[in-house]
């Protein structure tokens, strides 16, 4: 997030939530948004193909079709420019590339966008005016924006909208991705990416590489590595011989599971380090028992860049060990001694190599964590980025972006746009929450959300077992007939090993920059089952 979670509760005068079911996936952030809207009078705009909880208190709700985000953003910008609501001073002083962007946006009148997005032109106008006329407007998004073949374009469109109205660099403004996992921000900050060391220092940058070579005492490879989704593709072709999986579950979380399974089987040597025998661990040659968050010390970095302490409360079961201890032991056995007395010693090393974390210490974090960048030990941390419109790259760059259709558009054979996501009561691949007794008792199985009108036409009743199919595979699950989802769209969750939704998704259409799969749009068909099929 460019800004902080607390600002959504008090500073933001308008919040535009797009592609985030906030009250289910980031419940405590959802609470703050609701509080601001209902008790402080903040305006709320919601764009989502499902009429999510927040839509019920929104000033404008736009049920746009999955894969039409760019068109929706462009149409809002078209209104803002044509009605003279843009922040011309901010554009002139702090940005570049405006003309090219404005040229593309010119054709995206609300009427032009209406058939692409499924949103009435007048709603787009209302939303654009509310956003542009607010003193401080924030955009919150999650995987509904990013998990598309043009996910990067979607994010850049959100940035365009914020810059067009000068909604960046002040409290209550900003572009706020709500990140989905406890330490996904930290895993990125720590260089758990194929292109960068810690704090996004490029592996291809000679100076950065030399710094790490000196610190670590070994020569390092200077070409970028392979991203996760492409590792699976390479494994398919026999180009990956060894895979070490630490606390990940690609056999549930990756697109097109049949494709993943074939890939894992082709890899000569697979190591899985986890706390449970996950779907992925079954494919391992060696399984190493790690420790859960309650069993070790360390830090997590949250979605607002706040680094907070994790503290050991109980011992790991049996012979299980902290993940860092396992890595150290293995590195030492491979001829590269790694030895740290505790997690704090590791943090002390990493902060010397990580400029945005350089000023943080375990002791300083005791007072409620610290938000990066925190470059020195007297720096208080940074609640919001790009203060006064001063972007880290100098001028903020507008990008001219055209709408493109999702990789798989609905057709006669597969007429539905299927989206996948999470439920309030479960988390990601379910390894933890399926074993949390109360959560699993409350929500023990996946459901397929189907538009009520469409279900009626197909003769499908609420709770009836149906078949959902894509070009990759099919699953049977209970239908949840609801008027909360747009016509032509269906939704299910990917938490359940009994109905692993990623057998349906495609690994074919990846965003060209982020290589993120298009989980939010798979062309699908829903079939009513015969009486025998339902029981069989």
């Amino acid at each position: 997030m460019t800004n902080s979670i607390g600002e959504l509760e008090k500073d933001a005068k308008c919040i535009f939530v797009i592609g985030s079911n906030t009250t289910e996936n980031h419940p405590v952030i959802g609470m703050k948004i609701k509080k601001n809207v209902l008790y402080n009078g903040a305006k709320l705009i919601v764009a989502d193909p499902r009429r999510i909880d927040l839509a019920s208190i929104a000033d404008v709700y736009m049920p746009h079709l999955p894969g039409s985000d760019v068109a929706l953003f462009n149409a809002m910008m078209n209104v803002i420019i044509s009605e003279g609501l843009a922040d011309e001073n901010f554009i002139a002083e702090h940005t570049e590339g405006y003309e090219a962007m404005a040229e593309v946006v010119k054709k995206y009148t609300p009427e032009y966008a209406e058939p692409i997005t499924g949103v009435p032109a007048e709603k787009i106008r209302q939303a654009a005016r509310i956003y542009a006329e607010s003193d401080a407007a924030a955009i919150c998004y999650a995987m509904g924006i990013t998990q598309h073949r043009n996910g990067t374009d979607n994010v850049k469109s959100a940035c365009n909208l914020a810059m067009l109205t000068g909604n960046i660099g002040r409290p209550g403004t900003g572009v706020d991705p709500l990140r989905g996992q406890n330490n996904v921000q930290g895993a990125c900050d720590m260089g758990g990416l194929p292109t960068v060391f810690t704090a996004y220092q490029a592996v291809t940058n000679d100076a950065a590489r030399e710094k790490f070579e000196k610190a670590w005492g070994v020569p390092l490879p200077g070409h970028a590595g392979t991203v996760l989704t492409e590792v699976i593709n390479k494994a398919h072709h026999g180009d990956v011989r060894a895979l070490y999986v630490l606390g990940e579950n690609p056999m549930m979380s990756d697109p097109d599971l049949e494709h993943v399974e074939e890939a894992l089987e082709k890899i000569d040597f697979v190591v899985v380090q986890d706390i449970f025998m996950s779907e992925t661990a079954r494919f391992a040659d060696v399984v190493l028992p790690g420790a859960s968050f309650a069993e070790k010390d360390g830090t997590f970095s949250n979605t607002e860049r706040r680094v907070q302490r994790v503290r050991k409360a109980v011992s790991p079961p049996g012979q299980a060990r902290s993940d860092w201890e396992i890595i150290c032991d293995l590195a030492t056995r491979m001829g590269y001694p790694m030895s740290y007395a505790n997690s704090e010693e590791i943090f002390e090393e990493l902060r010397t190599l990580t400029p945005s974390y350089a000023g943080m210490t375990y002791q300083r974090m005791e007072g409620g964590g610290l938000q990066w960048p925190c470059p020195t030990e007297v720096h208080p941390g940074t609640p919001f980025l790009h203060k006064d419109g001063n972007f880290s790259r100098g001028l903020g760059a507008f990008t001219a972006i055209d709408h493109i259709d999702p990789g798989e558009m609905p057709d006669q054979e597969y007429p539905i746009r299927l989206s996948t996501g999470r439920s309030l009561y479960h988390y990601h691949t379910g390894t933890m929450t399926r074993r949390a007794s109360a959560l699993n008792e409350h929500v023990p199985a996946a459901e397929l959300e189907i538009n009520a009108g469409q279900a009626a036409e197909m003769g499908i009743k609420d709770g009836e077992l149906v078949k959902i199919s894509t070009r990759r595979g099919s699953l049977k699950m209970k239908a949840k007939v609801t008027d909360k989802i747009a016509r032509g769209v269906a939704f299910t969750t990917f938490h359940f090993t009994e109905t692993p939704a990623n057998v349906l998704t495609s690994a074919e259409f990846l965003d060209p920059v982020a290589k993120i799969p298009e989980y939010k749009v798979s062309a699908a068909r829903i079939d009513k089952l015969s009486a025998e099929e339902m029981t069989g």
Partner: protein
Amino acid sequence: MITLTINGREVQTPRGSTILEACQRNGISIPTLCYDPDLRLAGSCRMCVVEVKGRPLYAASCVTPAESNMIIETDSEGIVAARKVILELLAARHHFNCQVCEKNANCTFQDYCYQYGIKESRYEYGHGAIYEITDPNPFLERDYNKCIMCTRCVRACEEITVARAINVKNRGHEAKISTAFDGNLADSPCVFCGQCVMVCPTGALTSRVSAGMGRSYEVDKVLTTCTYCGTGCTFELNVKDDRVVGVTSDRTIVGSPVNKGALCVKGRFGWDFIHANDRLTTPLIKENGEFREASWDEALDLVAQRLGEIKTEHGPDSMAMFTSARVTNEENYLAQKFTRAVLGTNNVDHCARL
């Protein structure tokens, strides 16, 4: 600042504060039940009454503005007698089964009854209503027989979670906390966040997941960060005999900078996977398609040997590491260091994309 006299002492407080706040600022303790600093004022339990010179009635200090030159007594004979009657009135509808109650020794109502010597009530409660504990949800238990109608749960639901699932149904002796049409919580807008459990001053609202697992005085509380989504809520793991037996909130800004004690259903009630009986407890090596248990030495030597062989035979870029958005920063740092410095490849990534 204004100046007033409390218990014979001249004290100062900012203009606009209540008498309760003036007392708290000056280290004078006042008992409260319905008052919660994060919620709008109710002024309903009357436990916080004080004597204000010149006023005919005792004032509820939580809702009475402090005024310049007020003369206040917080602990006079009359006030103590009034609080005893108030506690007795509340006790009339409270089912005391403290010896088996989850909140025993962690119950504000019990503390005050003890402090003011209330062993039983002289009053009978209306029709003597006995409520059955019927809500079938697996997360929280609402025992109306212990409810003192302070409405903190209603206000927490409205103002912290903004779910607005519950409110007061009926009035007088018939009053009870209820969902719309008095149905099950699961059929209401309740999201089972347990903020109501957090603020309840009695044993009326407790966690079913923690039931019977430990008393508050038996547990150590360890402040840590939640393992689920990226919001970064902090909470206290309650530990007894090296096992997590519950989650409670530290509501201070230092202990809980992001969430101020508020949690969601997963954070508050989704922790028992930690001790699931199918946790991995020993390294495993696959032989002929079956896993067998192994020692750390054997397993790590095998991994070191095989990775070494593959590196030599096929080169570093034939190997890849998936690090994790689940593990700590320190572990991610070491995982990428291991991949780059030991395996010799930049093929390290994690599920940020998924």
